[in-house]
């Protein structure tokens, strides 16, 4: 066991945990934030995607002890009200989720993509958003990312 200090959504959390425990389970079970999901445990499905210093990361394969001082953002911390990040706005507009279980991960992966590439092409989206959705919401995810890209264009810019 080790005492870790994790910065999650701007708050410092002290946890007493085996440092080999995957970040996913520390977030879910020790910190109690359950928006980040378990889907496969082997970084295949992306349901556990969080941001580490802004980069989309599959938290099921990251030992909590290796995170150090990196800033962790989970779905609960993406926007202050849970609905105002351009990705969330676009997701609501396109009615993207079906069962919704993968959507925390899809949204976190898409938000990181948008931060890195404000105007992603379809190929960028296919490369960067590789999370599994068994309900099959991919068509709407793609459309919603393009909408979110438009939403983030400054008012003076081209729509």
């Amino acid at each position, binding site marked *: 066991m080790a005492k870790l200090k994790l910065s999650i959504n701007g708050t410092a959390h002290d946890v007493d945990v085996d440092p080999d425990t995957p970040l996913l389970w520390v977030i879910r079970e020790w910190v109690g934030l359950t928006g980040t999901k378990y889907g496969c445990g082997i970084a295949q499905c992306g349901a556990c995607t969080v941001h580490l210093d802004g980069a989309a990361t599959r938290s099921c394969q990251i030992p909590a002890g290796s995170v150090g001082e990196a800033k962790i953002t989970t779905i609960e911390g993406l926007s202050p009200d849970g609905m105002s990040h351009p990705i969330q706005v676009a997701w*609501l507009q396109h009615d993207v989720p079906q069962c919704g279980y993968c959507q925390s991960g899809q949204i976190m992966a898409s938000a990181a993509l948008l931060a890195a590439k404000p105007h992603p092409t379809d190929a960028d989206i296919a490369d960067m958003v590789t999370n599994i959705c068994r309900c099959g919401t991919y068509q709407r995810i793609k459309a919603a990312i393009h909408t979110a890209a438009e939403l983030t264009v400054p008012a003076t810019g081209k729509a």
Partner: protein
Amino acid sequence: MAQTLSRRFFLTASAVAGGGFSLGWSLPKAQAAENAPFELGIWATIAADDTVTIRIARSEMGQGTMTGLAQLVADELDADWRFVKTEFVTPEANLAAKRAWGDMSTGGSRGIRASVDYVRKGGAAARAMLVQAGAAKWGVPAGECVTALNVVTHTPSGRRLRYGELAADAAKLTPPTDVKVKTPAEWTLIGRGVKRLDTAEKLSGKLTYAIDVQLPNMLNAAIAQCPVFGGKLKSFDAAKIQQMPGVRHVVAVDDNAVAVVADKWFQAKTALAALPIVWDEGPNAKVDSQQIDAHLTAGLDAKEAGLAQEHGDIVAGLAGAATKIEAVYSMPFQHHATLEPMNCTAQFADGKVEVWVSSQNGDASLAAAAEAGGVKLADVKVHKHILGGGFGRRGQQDPVKQAVIIAKQVPGRPIKLIWTREEDMTHGFYRPIAKAKMTAGLDANGNLTTLHARLSAQSIAAYLAPQRMENGVDMIAFQGWTKDEFGYMAIPNLRIDDAVRNTHVPVGFWRGVNTNQNAIFMECFIDELAHATGKDPLDFRRSLMTKNPKHLAVLNAVAEKAGWGTPLPKGVHRGIAQNAGFGSYVAAVAEVSVSPKGELAIHRIVAGTDCGYAVNPEQIAAQVEGSFVYGLSALLTSEITIDKGRVVQTNFDSYEVMKLAAMPKVETVIVPSGGFWGGVGEPTIAVAPPAVLNAIFAATGKRVRTLPLSHQDLSHA
């Protein structure tokens, strides 16, 4: 239940999940009491602030039934959609009320179509109560009052009262039973593509799925089940892991599994991996996929076979045919792989059981919990959560039984059981393995005169519901091929039969069930016949559909929308397919290209459905798009194989499913012909794979008859 502030945004965006989750701010207590909802019959409550809460008995697993059912009730109630929210009926309430809310099971695309009569009557009854309450208040005849958008209006005087103002009085009345529902022309919400009611909390991470339940004093359990189906637990050495972090208990679960209970689930999982376990793998430990394949192959020519339907004389028809064509098709087992792994939380205390579930059948969850706990049905409480995927898997209650068995050994504390993905993948109720031998007789002009479709497939009914076997015949296996569903009834000599070949592998209902396999068998073979006779695949089908105008209308609609017969970019080819199932008629045209090396790209699929009445066109389109991802995964890469009696694939690295990069553009054409209520969640899934396979043939000249495609070489000159 928790009340939520009735700000418009939250009303339109919110829904209450079984976990007692509430969106927005909680009302102060006094105000909450003031706004207590009034029951208007069993299907709707209305609060003083005009909030209309519609009760949902079916499960919500992404298919949108919760929203569609709310539309049905709200339409009859003349509710203002902006004020509508939903709540789940609990299984214990349904039990206590002698199933007043009907069947809670959610599968077979029945969520809407099997509820449509009674939920609409429930809405109409509530509306009648509001009208009567308003009329009484004004001292006028009810017949002079009309309703719209949460308001009762006395037409002659123009007086108006909001539903919220009438609810208390209306709730004192007896719900009328002789209500009439609206005609389609009177619908205001049915047919509108309103947005889902459950989206907002799926974007914020705040929705509590069953796997997210957190309760005071809760412990967590990880489970290992005998890897060979039918095998038993022999022994385990708990002492070896008792000292590991967090471990509290190591318990046998039934006769085939062992669970570790720990403070945290990850500790339970880690300890379980270190637990020495001895299994009695039993007689199935030597079975492999090759043996199963041979077992099914033998069925293709077996004398004994159950009959789906027969007319004319196939023996004479084949004997007199100018050309005889035969082909054998083969489909593997498939897993559901819901993204939320199997789980259940249970508490056993004072002879009572409480469970928190992700279930397609709340009634069955309650019954399973009672049986596993050895308690009366009346001593069980079930908290239904929105499912993280169902697809048929969550009609089965095995995780519920296990959680209760574990909880009974740790009384007084809630136990959350979560299966690892590996347990989930290797302990499913798989889509049955199936083969078909298709035999056709054609006359000298290339007309199809005789068709014999012989299935040799594992039976879902034999495994899950033997009472549904009719004289050894599993009618479920013939989905799409029964007299009521089959689209080529004009074929003069027809026989469809099934030599059931069961295995030790558990099988169950998988989205689209047998229509998946049967549509590939039939639609690819019909395509083979069209090409063999040099006829256009669309025209060839049309010639066989003279007795099936509804099937034909959908086929024509997609052909027109897809521009069948018009030029395509170089290298792009089309394929077509049609089917009927779950009460709806469906068809698709796929456009694909295959590089000379054999790399497949699916560019576009135009899909059509006639579901009779279309409750919510937007959600229908979402179901069509989504079901294609599920069906195409099985076409492209997914398969479950068996070695040493157990499932070979353990996770998404070996059971590969489709990702965004492979998603074609899907265009949904809804051609609702009216007069019936057809299913939506499943029917269309069946036509994407055969349409793609037929397009692959057009592109490569290669006829793929064994799936998945990842085993096939599609390279071509």
